[in-house]
């Protein structure tokens, strides 16, 4: 039995210290998943805390055959999916549709700061913007795949989907993200051309 299994076993018997060790170990992966899902640090903090509370309350349901991290991230993903769906619903119910009946996009909460931001930071912001446009479950699948290197089978188990559904969701999400990426590239190119034409040399 490894250290983690010992902590889980002790926590299942009511040892809060052991559970605290699990929180210390998994706070970053859980927070990162929540942050990537929800896009705001405050919401991510709340979601991560809630994930650990739920894990604490339902520890007796944990199946020891599964890796603890997968179980924990599955709780976090489901919580965030639920949160995003509610947020989307409340946004739609609060705001009216336009004349043509088009729905609204979720605003980019992490828009890049143009001044003094590094290229890496810009890329991060673009990744965030791309994730923002995805369906909640697709977003969870993408995060599990690219941040945690989960296999399609592991994602399927975590999100209670079939492997083929995960595969098609990943493909769809990647295509959507590439579309957004391409549009942004086009905008950037157009902006650069505009600036060239506006420069004093012309």
């Amino acid at each position, binding site marked *: 039995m490894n250290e983690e299994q010992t902590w889980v076993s002790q926590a299942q018997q009511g040892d809060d210290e052991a559970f*605290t060790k699990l929180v210390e170990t998994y706070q970053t992966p859980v927070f990162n998943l929540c942050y990537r899902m929800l896009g705001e640090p405050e919401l991510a903090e709340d979601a991560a805390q809630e994930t650990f*509370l739920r894990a604490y309350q339902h520890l007796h349901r944990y199946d020891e055959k599964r890796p603890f991290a997968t179980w924990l991230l599955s709780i976090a993903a489901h919580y965030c999916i639920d949160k995003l769906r509610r947020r989307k619903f409340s946004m739609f119910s609060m705001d009216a549709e336009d004349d043509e009946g088009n729905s609204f996009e979720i605003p980019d909460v992490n828009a890049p700061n143009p001044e003094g931001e590094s290229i890496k930071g810009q890329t991060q912001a673009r990744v965030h913007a791309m994730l923002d446009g995805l369906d909640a479950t697709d977003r969870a699948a993408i995060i599990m795949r690219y941040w945690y290197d989960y296999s399609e089978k592991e994602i399927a188990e975590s999100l209670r989907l079939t492997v083929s559904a995960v595969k098609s969701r990943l493909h769809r999400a990647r295509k959507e993200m*590439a579309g957004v990426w391409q549009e942004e590239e086009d905008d950037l190119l157009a902006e650069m051309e505009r600036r060239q034409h506006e420069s004093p040399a012309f």
Partner: protein
Amino acid sequence: MNHQPFESWLLDDKYLSAAEKRELTSHLRDCRTCTALAETGLALRSAKVTSPAAGFTLRFQQRLAAQKVAERRRKLWGMIVLIVSGLGLLGWFAAPFVYAFIAAPVEWLTAAVGYFLFMFTSLQAFSEIIRVLLRMVPNFIPPYAWMVLLSSLGGLGLIWIVSIWRFARKPQGVTA
């Protein structure tokens, strides 16, 4: 080669041989869709892992403690409401009898003594019947039937004990 296999390679994150890599690089020069797919793949793989602000564990412990207190308070209030409503209901049902007892206590006491005497004599008669049956019935029942009966009773008792244990058992991990 047409566009489709390259798109599949990129979407499936396929491990590419040197020759396949060359083919893909050549395709990316002409295909903007696949270029965008490759770039998003790279951006996703290079995305950093974000950590929570310092003191996350402490904040969790505080939240857990607050939740335990709230849970205890909710249970206490639930119990108080249950007891008060139970007593209220009991009082509502018992009020006519209490009123009648206060109005004529001697009649009530006589009725109560009569009731207890009836119960006592009935129990005596019942125990006498059981005693007689126990003396007579064993002669008619073969030993194997006794064994079946006792085993069944033992099994039922075991089921009863296990059921009580399962209902009374506190879920693991919940110490509130």
